[in-house]
């Protein structure tokens, strides 16, 4: 292989790795708190979506269900998370994840119908999540129409009526606050 073990020695025993381990332990502790007693002895424990949604960081987030669905690798599409999925979630929302990762996951979270693009229906659901689901916090139909047409006019570069991933990332790259705001 490339370098020798002697070069690795000092690097590995550094404080940096200690902190990494510390973060990892904390994550695992949080995850195992969510597991029920009988699940802990399974080979790949899965936490059901309701338990994940009880985490304080996700409890009041309007996108919590979408977050679970995006990071879940379960075949039944029920939003349950294994420990690896949980780590994926934490690392995507950490402060060391890059803009590319965050924007990719944000796009998938906003894509409510999972068709790979953000069309008018996705945008409407997104705006409703942002403003609140109750009737008095929604925008009026006229305002919603105006808003969606403005958004598509600004960000739909190839004029196909939907916002795809590259167009989304183009909008994100112009916003310097994005990386800081997508952090739990």
């Amino acid at each position, binding site marked *: 292989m490339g*370098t020798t073990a002697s070069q690795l020695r000092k690097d590995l025993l550094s404080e940096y790795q200690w902190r990494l*381990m510390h973060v990892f332990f904390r994550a695992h502790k949080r995850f195992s708190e969510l597991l029920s007693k009988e699940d802990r002895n399974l080979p790949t424990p899965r936490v059901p979506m309701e338990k994940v949604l009880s985490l304080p960081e996700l409890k*009041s987030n309007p996108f919590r269900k979408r977050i679970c669905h995006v990071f879940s690798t379960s075949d039944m599409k029920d939003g349950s998370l294994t420990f690896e999925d949980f780590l994926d979630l934490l*690392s995507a929302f950490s402060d060391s994840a890059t803009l590319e990762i965050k924007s990719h996951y944000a796009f998938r979270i906003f894509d409510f119908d999972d068709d790979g693009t953000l069309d008018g229906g996705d945008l409407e659901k997104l705006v409703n999540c942002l*403003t609140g689901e109750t009737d008095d916090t929604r925008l009026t139909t006229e*305002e919603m129409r105006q808003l969606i047409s403005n*958004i598509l006019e600004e960000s739909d570069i190839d004029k196909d009526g939907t916002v795809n991933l590259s167009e989304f990332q183009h909008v994100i790259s112009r916003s310097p606050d994005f990386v800081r705001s997508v952090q739990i």
Partner: protein
Amino acid sequence: MLDELCISIVISSEIRRTGCLIVVFVKCWWNPLCLMEFSELQRQSSTIAHGYHGAQQSVRLRSKSVVSNQNGPQFNWGSPPSEGGEEGDSGPPKDLRERPMPMHLKRAIREVQQMRVPVVTNWQSWKRSKAKSLSRFRADAGGVMSYVALWRKALHKIGGHFGGGVQSYFMFLRFLVVLNFLSFLLIAGFILIPSIVFRSTSTTNMTVDSTGPEVCRVYDPNLQGLVVFYQYFLDLLSGTGFMEYSYVFYGYYNNTVAESSGFHYNLPLAYLLTSVFYFAFCLICIIARMGSALRVAVATGSGAAGSYSKMVFTGWDYGCQGDRATKLKQKSIHYQLQVDLEEERLQKKALSLTLGQTVGLCSLRIFLMLVSLALIGGAFFGIFNATVFSQAQVGAEGILGLFWVYLPSIVITTGNFVVPFMCDQIALFERYSPSTTIIMALFRSVFLRMISLGVLLFTLWSQITCFKGSKECEPCQYNNKDYPCWETRVGQEMYKLALFDFLITIAMLILVEFPRRLFVDHYSCALTRWVGRQEFLVPPNVLGLVYGQTVVWTGALFCPLLPLINTLKFFIIFYCKKVTLFSNCRPAVKTFRSTTSTIFFLVVLLFGWCLALVAMIYSLAQIHPSMSCGPFRSLTMMWSIVPNTFYTLSLTTQDFMFYMGSQAFSIPLFIFSCVVLCYVAALAAVYGKSVDLLKAQLKLEGRDKQFLVKQIEELSREMGVPTRDQVDTFDTGAAN
């Protein structure tokens, strides 16, 4: 990072079978706590190991790690970043981390990468490993710095509850605290400590006797022996009495030139150069901080374009915790969207105004602008008169004396409250769009604050240098009858301004904000509902900070301890503002963009710096220093210490310095910097053009895609093949 750990845990669970693991960890991390957690984790990690599909490649890893383990306390963490990969890089391992894939995919790819044996020379691998360790060191340093950063948790909490705009105010406050503290260290190191040392060991010093008429050298700072106890308190507030002849003010420092066995310290020169360097240091800090924010702002282009998509796609702050914060955030986003949509509708309507209506609106705006200018002019007139009157009342005793002494500060603060309030009421009639209204209000307030301070300084200086040309300035070229030590007097004025500003802030908190909250919460009538809870308005608070900092800069030459006093003042204000924010305020519904607002705050701070610079240059170069006190008492101008010292240097040094200042050196330097500027501007233009080209290319490709899809549909219709939904497949392919 975390995926590396996953791999390491997997490997560790494999090695567990050899039983070496616990030994290794004990040797590595002499920390029993860590060990306990880890042994608990081993049970869990075995479950992960079983879940991991033991691909062929893992065998290779296992054997490799066992081998390295037997060499001692070395642990193969699977794929250490310093391992050579393909060429060019901090390349593949970092890239892999940045790709948004689930963990099992990343693991598989990493194994494939590790199977490749790189062919690099020794030099390249050394370079690569050095680069890797440097970047790791930088990451560590960044991590440590963020740990010890002042008030990190408090700022995070504020940002989560009240948003980025309010958080940027507190970050600006923190920046000012650190700046003032570093300035104080600078001043203490070069002026204060040498002064203390020279005063206490006055054996080898040489105090140059001041020249000039006898009458000018009289300075009696009125040191009384036993005074009434409350006199101390009054002296503390106004900087007179025991405070006047102390290290706080300029008059206490002597113009000692210490010489002892090779050690030579020229205190006046040090005083001057430290003050000049203090200004330069502050400028560098401000520009450095502005640079990073500007770089981002320039790269992302103007904020106006694409604001709806930006607001919708990037508007949500995932750090919001709790139902209350979430609802507030949702409400603010709702309000922001409504306001922007309404502004767009208004703009469309405004474009459709008739000529007569446009003329009427313009004339109304001009009239209101004149009214606000008249208000500001009235405030200036009031400050001028108050300063003149206050200076004439020197010598009055007791509380009334204190009131006269504080009169300019009172008038300035009153003006700073009343005039912006009236300007806001005027702005309601001007019917600008909401964003323009905010900017106009801010600029008016900035104008008012900075220029009111300027008027105060101007009146002071006109009094000191007998602007009206009276006979009092004859003997000493300054008004030594009223101002035997004028620098101390100016320092006292600045000290009083700073202190009064602080007292007013605290008083507002205690007497206005807390009662308002109590009143609103416990009584509900129409009045309380109209008044409502306090809203934390960021712009006026920031202007208060900028004003305080400008006062400090103006006064630092005459009151060397003012940066220290200001550090303490801002430190206390941070906690007070935090308390009032959480107890009394509801969040502002109109949010402030944090990066552009940081730039705006720093630009306003630069205005203040320029004003202070003008004041300092005028004091250094125009006014005759007092002959009775201070380090410059024997000179005709404060600046003349520099040429005097310059001519005592050796001839070669003098010639070298003359050459640096001559045209033969400065013109080529100027031309060179112009060339560099042109290069950078050309580079920026090229990048902008390539961005436009790529955007056009993206458009073309989208159209190509649509064209191809249509063709496929037509073909399949012609050939009779049942048309599938091709569009989805194409799109998901593009998205991934």
